[in-house]
């Protein structure tokens, strides 16, 4: 998989041979990955896959065992301070200081990032709060916010200095559907303006909608990467499930299919039969021919795509 990654010198995120260990536990295993500028890139995987470790290394919060990471061409280990100016990092379950008001929290970071004038800071803080639709809450104490509101405020903080690389660990957790939609729009807008976003989520359907490309990680390794469809194809090719809709003789068709050695787990739902099929596309075509020759009136015959959730559950269970 790693060899297949293009050697993109203009990659906004360029990770090579990244390894992270916690004692004898290997969290990230020689990961190589490039994300071009302007992408919204998703990192998917079950708990313990190595996503958060990868993100913490990218955010310069953790020193890897070894490996090279460049963000917008800046080596994050050699030029840590410079790299930090490029990064907008939002951790999982993003915390906020309980003793500050929303605007005070953002104002502090706006100033840290060099916005000196109070007027300019106020304008920038309001702009970012507006972007995440939290302007109404600017005078509230952070401790009064709900989980979703907190996520949005931290996202606004992440956007303050117009980072070139946004690293968002589970940004949508706790957000209501409207906020999630807003998050999608914000990320797309940022990407269209040239920022590169790398985002992880457990809401996989959400990630599929949000990202232009993604990769799947498990056991510290990258399993697949590409567009959403490419990844689904790559990981789902062993999971071919066919569906047949017959006009009548449904039970008879189920028995006939069940008798085939290359067909397993036939299920019936009204006139629809679904079953696991082992074979390639030619085998799939001959099965249709046989069904027709047996006199079954086939109304529909199709390959059912495995859902992302199904794929990931199987990856997690199978330890692939």
């Amino acid at each position, binding site marked *: 998989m790693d060899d297949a990654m293009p050697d993109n010198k203009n990659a906004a995120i360029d990770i090579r041979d990244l390894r992270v260990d916690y004692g004898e536990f290997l969290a990230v295993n020689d990961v190589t990955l490039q994300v071009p500028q302007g992408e919204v890139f998703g990192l998917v995987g079950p708990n313990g896959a190595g996503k958060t470790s990868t993100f913490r290394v990218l955010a310069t919060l953790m020193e890897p065992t070894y490996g090279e990471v460049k963000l917008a061409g800046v080596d994050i280990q050699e030029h840590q301070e410079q790299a930090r100016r490029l990064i907008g990092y939002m951790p999982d379950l993003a915390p906020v200081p309980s003793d*500050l008001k929303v605007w005070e929290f953002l104002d502090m970071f706006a100033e840290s990032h060099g916005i000196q004038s109070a007027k300019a800071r106020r304008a920038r803080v309001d702009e970012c709060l507006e972007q995440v639709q939290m302007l109404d809450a600017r005078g509230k104490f952070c401790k009064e916010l709900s989980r979703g509101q907190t996520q949005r405020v931290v996202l606004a903080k992440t956007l303050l200095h117009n980072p070139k690389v946004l690293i968002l660990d589970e940004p949508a957790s706790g957000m209501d559907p409207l906020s999630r939609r807003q998050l999608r729009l914000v990320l797309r807008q940022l990407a269209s303006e040239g920022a590169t976003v790398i985002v992880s989520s457990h809401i996989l359907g959400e990630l599929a909608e949000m990202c232009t490309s993604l990769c799947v990680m498990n056991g510290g390794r990258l399993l697949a990467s590409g567009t959403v469809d490419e990844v689904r194809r790559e990981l789902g090719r062993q999971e071919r499930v066919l569906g047949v809709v017959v006009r009548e003789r449904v039970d008879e068709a189920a028995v006939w299919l069940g008798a085939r050695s290359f067909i397993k787990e036939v299920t019936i739902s009204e006139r629809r039969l679904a079953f696991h099929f082992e074979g390639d596309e030619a085998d799939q075509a001959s099965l249709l021919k046989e069904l027709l020759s047996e006199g079954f009136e086939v109304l529909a015959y199709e390959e059912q795509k495995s859902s992302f959730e199904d794929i990931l559950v199987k990856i997690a269970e199978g330890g692939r």
Partner: protein
Amino acid sequence: MNWLANPIFRRYCRSRLRPNGLIAWLLVTLVLTGFTFFLARLSAMHRGGVLSVDAERMAIFPLMVIQGIILFFLGTGQVAGGITGEADEGVLDYQRLSPLTPVQKMLGYLFGLPVREWLLFFSTMPFSLWCFVQGKVPFAAWGSVYLIFISSAILYHLTGLTAGLVIRNKRWAFLSSMAMILLLYTVMPQVAKMGLLFFDYLTIWPVLDENLPSMLPRVTGEVVRVVQLFSKKVSLFNLQFSELVFTLFCQGGMLLALGTMVCRRWRRAESHLLGKSGAALLFVWLQTFLLGNALPLIKEGDVFPSKSFAFVLRNNKTYEPDFSEGLFVIIAYGVVTMVLLLALVYMITPAADVQLRGIRRAKKLGLPRVPIATDAASAWMWAMAMLSAGAVAWYLFAERILASDWFPDHTLPWYGLLAFWVVLLNAVMIFHAIVEGWGNRAIFLFGLFVGVVPLLLSFVVGVVADGWLTTSVWLGSLSPWSGAVLAPPVVIPGAELPSSVARAVPRAFYFCQCIMLIVNGVLWIKLRQKLQQRSAIAT
């Protein structure tokens, strides 16, 4: 420097100076300070029949106690607890990522977290200023005392900040920083009486003592001034300093060391507090100060605690310290050296996972071994270098004591150096091997059952009956940390031990030190094997 331009400082100005909390604290402080101020002055004026100028001075020290509680105790606790709280909430990572320099971040927290305490402190200053002006206290006197008061507060706050970055529990961080200050003001002055003055200069006592005559009521002040005529300026080898300059010098050095620790933690949360070369440098610096302060005190006998009693009892001219006192200060120097070594070696010894990571990185980079100055490298070479330096310093101190006019009948033979070195080798290298090879839990258990329990048992057995003293000595010498106490009486010829233990002490000392040398060797081999295992795992 524009403090308000520091975003972290400003953040705490906002959160800790909100009127709700601040007004309540301010009211309590002002009521308490006002009460103390008026009570001390007016009672002296109207009940004590003291002259006005002297009565004004009566309130100076009670006010200073209140200021000390605010700034030293509450301020330090707030810094330690506040930074731990930020780490606990998770917001500290945001600050790590902000593009401020580590020094800016350190200063922001150092002055921001206790900003309310600073304000409360300054709110009490008008009362003190009234006392100084009306009491005609010279500016040079109260100015230098308050300069050191403030530099001490900053030092303690920085210690609290360091503790807060190391200790994960907010309450423990708060309590340990309180304990540190209590220790500094109660135990350390006793250590200073044995010539180890350095620790005293981390407090406000020396400068306060120096300026006491000007700040006390005049008659009392004059008495103190006469007493002070007999005291000397502080020396570092042949150099003489005023108390103010030397205190600033000592505190400045500690501020630099602690600042380095905090900045390292800002750069990488998992960094050791000090690098290996930094720890070695700090040890040499501390030893230079300990030795530099103590050696000039030997000639006049000021290194011996009984000298101050002799002065009080007015037998100063016929003063002569007992040899046991000489032995005692030599032991004290050895114990302090050992404690410093254990603390610094613990600081630079890598945990197993850090070491494993370093080995993997070195292999990946094609290096033959982990670079020796990095956190992941084994600390044994550095521990050896530091303990050797410590043994030399200890030997020099002991040799100078015995070569002085006080003890013409005693000398320290050359093998004293070897004995001191072996004692430190056994105490420090066994400790190091266990920490590096088996981790914190193992060293805790070892420290408890091998280091402390034999010592406690030895005390208990020793008080049962004189007949048990021999057993007590043997039990105590089982602890690797008892060597610093047993070595001086054993290696100094003519050291008269009580007859009941005169035979047991050298025998127990030599026997146990030999056993410990063997244990040390075994542990060293085991540690090598551990490192080889880690190297194998890394591939």
